[in-house]
């Protein structure tokens, strides 16, 4: 029986399942022993090693056997693939767009038009766009591969992400506590990319030291958001605890964004960039800088409004869940 034991252990090594590994090994061992016994009976003797070898040979290599049990032959399976494609497109377009803006700002602020520095920045910028797009795609793939492996089959179906609207869905009254999985996954992806951006994994020339002081706080909010979303994906429904976490998180967002809104020079052209502006175009630069500042202001206000809406939504959900009881 030694060989069967070794064989079973070898299959176990190749299993990629999280739970039930021992069960599989135990079941496989008992099956192989049954088969061996049956063969020995047929041949009218007791099982010997040659018989064992023959049996294991027929059963297949441990690697092959383990593969039949391994639940995820896909990196990203068909169930979430449509959503993956949709989000990948959005992420690629928005990062390429964002990095192009960054490059244009650099071109305007750092060089006299068409000088040698101009082509240099253009070249660097295009390289930067390419590498950012590639690493952003990497993040999206990574996040979806994790979701593929951690979120249970139940609930997520192709229909959730189907663009075709089904009139029958009107008839069903939606459960007010159920979560929108597509929305959650999108939120995880964008929060993750947000984390990468504010921690300057991509090159962003507009963050000041003042901004960097806020980064740990923003990180805390973003990480909470991702953890909460992953938890909700698994749980599929909102409950009191998750709603309270959500409310606290949105409140934190509002506080941080408000403080940043009233802190001067949080996001601006850094001193080095300003140094490089040639004298002649300083007036134009001032206009660009002002437009940029207003853009930043609007962005903070949008963040505060969105967070407030989310906070109110969560609070209403919380109150309703108690009044319904």
């Amino acid at each position, binding site marked *: 029986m030694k060989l069967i034991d070794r064989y079973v252990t070898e299959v176990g090594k190749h299993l990629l399942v999280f739970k039930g590994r021992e069960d*599989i090994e135990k079941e496989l061992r008992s*099956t192989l022993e*049954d088969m061996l016994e049956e063969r020995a009976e047929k041949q009218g003797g007791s099982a010997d090693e040659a018989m064992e070898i023959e049996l294991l040979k027929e059963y297949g290599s441990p690697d092959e056997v383990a593969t039949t049990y391994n639940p995820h032959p896909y990196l990203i399976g068909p169930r979430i693939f449509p959503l993956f494609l949709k989000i990948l497109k959005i992420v690629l377009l928005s990062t390429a767009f964002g990095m192009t803006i960054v490059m244009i700002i650099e071109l305007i602020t750092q060089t006299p038009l068409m000088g040698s520095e101009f082509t240099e920045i253009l070249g660097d910028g295009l390289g930067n766009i390419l590498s950012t797009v590639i690493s952003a795609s990497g993040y999206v793939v990574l996040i979806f591969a994790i979701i593929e492996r951690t979120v249970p089959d139940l609930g997520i179906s192709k229909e959730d992400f189907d663009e075709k609207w089904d009139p029958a869905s009107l008839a069903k009254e939606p459960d007010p506590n159920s979560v929108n999985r597509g929305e959650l996954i999108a939120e995880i992806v964008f929060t993750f990319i947000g984390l990468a951006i504010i921690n300057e994994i991509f090159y962003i020339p507009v963050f000041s030291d003042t901004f960097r002081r806020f980064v740990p706080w923003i990180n805390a909010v973003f990480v909470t958001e991702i953890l909460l979303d992953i938890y909700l994906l698994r749980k599929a429904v909102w409950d009191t605890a998750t709603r309270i976490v959500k409310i606290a998180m949105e409140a934190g967002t509002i506080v941080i964004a408000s403080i940043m809104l009233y802190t001067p020079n949080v996001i601006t052209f850094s001193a080095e960039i300003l140094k490089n502006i040639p004298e002649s175009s300083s007036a134009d630069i001032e206009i660009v800088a002002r437009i940029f500042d207003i853009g930043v202001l609007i962005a903070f206000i949008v963040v505060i409004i969105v967070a407030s809406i989310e906070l109110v939504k969560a609070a209403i959900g919380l109150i309703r869940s108690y009044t319904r009881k």
Partner: protein
Amino acid sequence: MANTESLDNVVLELRRGVIVLAVLSQLNGEQYGYSLLKLLSDQGLEVDQGTLYPLLRRLEAQGLLESVWKLEEARPRRYYVISAEGKKLLPKLKKEWAGIVSVMNKMLA
């Protein structure tokens, strides 16, 4: 060569769908994996171990089967039996199957 390969593939696809129904129909009484394999084979349906065991686990994870370990002849065996949910599903599957058979018989006649 290519022809036999595509024939094999089509046959494999055809059988794959049938196996779930066959397994559910044979698990009204408790069976362990190997005894179920022989039960199916005795009735003319040859199923590969590499197909059957993972399928049993999957059906159990879906709640259509239940399983319990029993010690028999000093050997632990995992016995599978159809669950309440599986029992509810089986008649629907049978009806579906009968529909497919009658449509295909007409089509192929």
